[in-house]
């Protein structure tokens, strides 16, 4: 069995288990997982960027673009189906990245991080100064159907969870496939040595640009999923602290598997939920200390618990 196949089967198995587990889970957990998977999608995009040697501190921009695209299409254009809205969010974010990428693709390291941060903060400012979009208060979104099924009753509780699961599984599968193509394999090559990639006749700029667009599409889908699960959108999604959390999830989770961002996002959400509940006055301290512990004790991220045990670190 090839590695690709094994990953695919594993993801499908995990998807099936998670779907089957839905009736067993309490409702608050369904919501928590749906929101975490939305964040995981953004982290999945960041994972691709990190494999290309780039860290963006502005993924919140694409997250917000996806959410606002889905939200405005839902409330103004009366696009009712959640699946269509998620696709729309991904496409809108990809389009924005297509344009900004013309500039961003020239940058590396901390300068890439800071330029992406500047763009996301400009977007934040524009959203704050748009009373039509509710300014900082944002607005509510309510899809009518999910893949044709009316969004009411039991569906209201399960739909965001199942939708997030389906989008996450599809995205992880697709990204894993992409990374095994010729184009996908250029990403780590760019990180290792851009000069050699150019000598081989590939365009580093195009590779980076393409990966930027893919990462943005994932972040846009994540934004749309989050918006539909939470039912509300506001400019905070584009703020730099949101982007910072995405980077945190990605690094803490580890970058060796396409499943890591999702597992990491769920664990961090759980941790936060328990910390807020049991230490309402010091939950930030608990989060910070835990994150430090993970960074210091597990240099390869949480996922390295699985890989290290077998001595098969890539």
């Amino acid at each position, binding site marked *: 069995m090839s590695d690709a196949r094994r990953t695919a089967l594993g993801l499908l198995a995990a998807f099936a288990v998670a779907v089957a587990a839905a009736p067993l889970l309490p409702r608050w957990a369904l919501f928590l997982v749906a929101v975490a998977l939305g964040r995981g999608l953004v982290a999945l995009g960041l994972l691709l960027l*990190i494999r290309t040697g780039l*860290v963006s501190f502005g993924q919140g921009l694409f997250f917000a673009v996806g959410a606002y695209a889905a939200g405005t299409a839902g409330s103004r254009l009366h696009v009712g189906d959640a699946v269509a809205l998620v696709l729309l969010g991904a496409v809108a974010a990809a389009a924005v990245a297509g344009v900004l990428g013309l*500039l961003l693709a*020239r*940058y590396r*390291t*901390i*300068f890439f*991080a*800071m*330029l992406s*941060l*500047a*763009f996301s*903060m*400009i977007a*934040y*400012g*524009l959203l*704050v*100064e748009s009373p039509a979009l509710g300014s900082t208060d944002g607005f509510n979104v309510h899809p009518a159907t999910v893949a044709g099924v009316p969004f009411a009753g039991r569906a209201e509780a399960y739909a965001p969870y199942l939708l997030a699961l389906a989008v996450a599984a599809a995205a992880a599968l697709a990204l894993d496939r992409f990374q095994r193509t010729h184009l996908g394999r250029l990403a780590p090559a760019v990180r290792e040595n851009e000069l050699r990639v150019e000598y081989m006749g590939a365009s580093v700029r195009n590779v980076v640009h393409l990966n930027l667009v893919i990462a943005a599409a994932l972040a846009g889908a994540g934004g749309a999923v989050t918006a539909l699960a939470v039912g509300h959108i506001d400019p905070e999604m584009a703020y*730099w*602290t949101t982007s*910072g959390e995405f*980077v*945190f999830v990605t*690094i*803490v989770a580890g970058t060796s598997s396409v499943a890591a961002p999702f597992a990491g996002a769920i664990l961090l959400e759980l941790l936060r939920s328990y910390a807020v509940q049991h230490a309402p*006055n*010091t*939950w*930030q*301290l608990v*989060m*910070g*200390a835990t*994150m*430090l512990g993970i*960074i*210091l004790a597990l*240099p390869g991220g949480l996922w390295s618990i699985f890989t290290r045990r077998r001595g098969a670190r890539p």
Partner: protein
Amino acid sequence: MSTLAAVLADGMIYAAWLFLIAAGLTMIYGVMRILNMAHGSLYTLGAYTAASLVGAWLRGGHPPLGSFLVLGAAALLVGLVVGPIVERGLLRFTYGRDEVVLVLVTYALFLILEDLVKLVWGVESYYVTEPYGLLGTVDLGPLTYPIYSGLVVLAAIAVGLALRWGIERTRAGKLLVAVIHDREVSAALGIDVSRVFLVTFTVGTTLAALGGALTAPTVAVVPGMGVEVIVLAFAVVVIGGLGSVPGAALGAVLVGLVRSAAVHLLPQLELFSIYLVMALVLAVRPRGLFVAAEARKI
């Protein structure tokens, strides 16, 4: 004409404030390659310590003019206590890790410090307004400015000159430059790199705390006051060129003037003026205005 004067005066006052915060940040990055997200928390710590100490000083019936010295002492206290604890107790275990990981370490530190400040000082606001009004005001055309703002400008200039002199003219500064250029070779030549790091981080912390201490008399010292400051300081440092102190000065002046012009002429632009400057500068000069003199090893 009077608008132009106001733009210049307000811009320079704001620039001085920005530079005080950004100088330590850029220095720590230049030497240690750490983009310190906790810098804003150190600024907050400086403000709280200054508020507490100056409050105690004035309640003790000491001469009010002495409160300026207490502000400085508060910054020094924070720098000398917190700097070494953080560097020795945490950061040194992370050297050699990826730059992004270091950013996250300081982000975690930021979360911890924010809650620690809250545990020590609570969420109530603190006030040390006395020094602000102590020196009186000066009229500039139709506008009135407190002389205290001039003092902050002088402090910023003094810090800038002291850093420049310290780096270029002293032995310690030359060792610092060697470490910036090549950490391994410096160590091989017998320079105590970990000591250089300790000193750098302590100086950087003191500068952040000084920024906070000098700000304290003009504001209510409240939890979270450092959060907004971090990203402003980042912008200044990136515009100027990471690791460059003169760059940070130029970045601060640029940002200060543009923001002040926006406030006077086009208030709607104020919210993103700083990020527009940052995006524009990076678009033209991808590594900031002053690329630090050292070659970045690839």
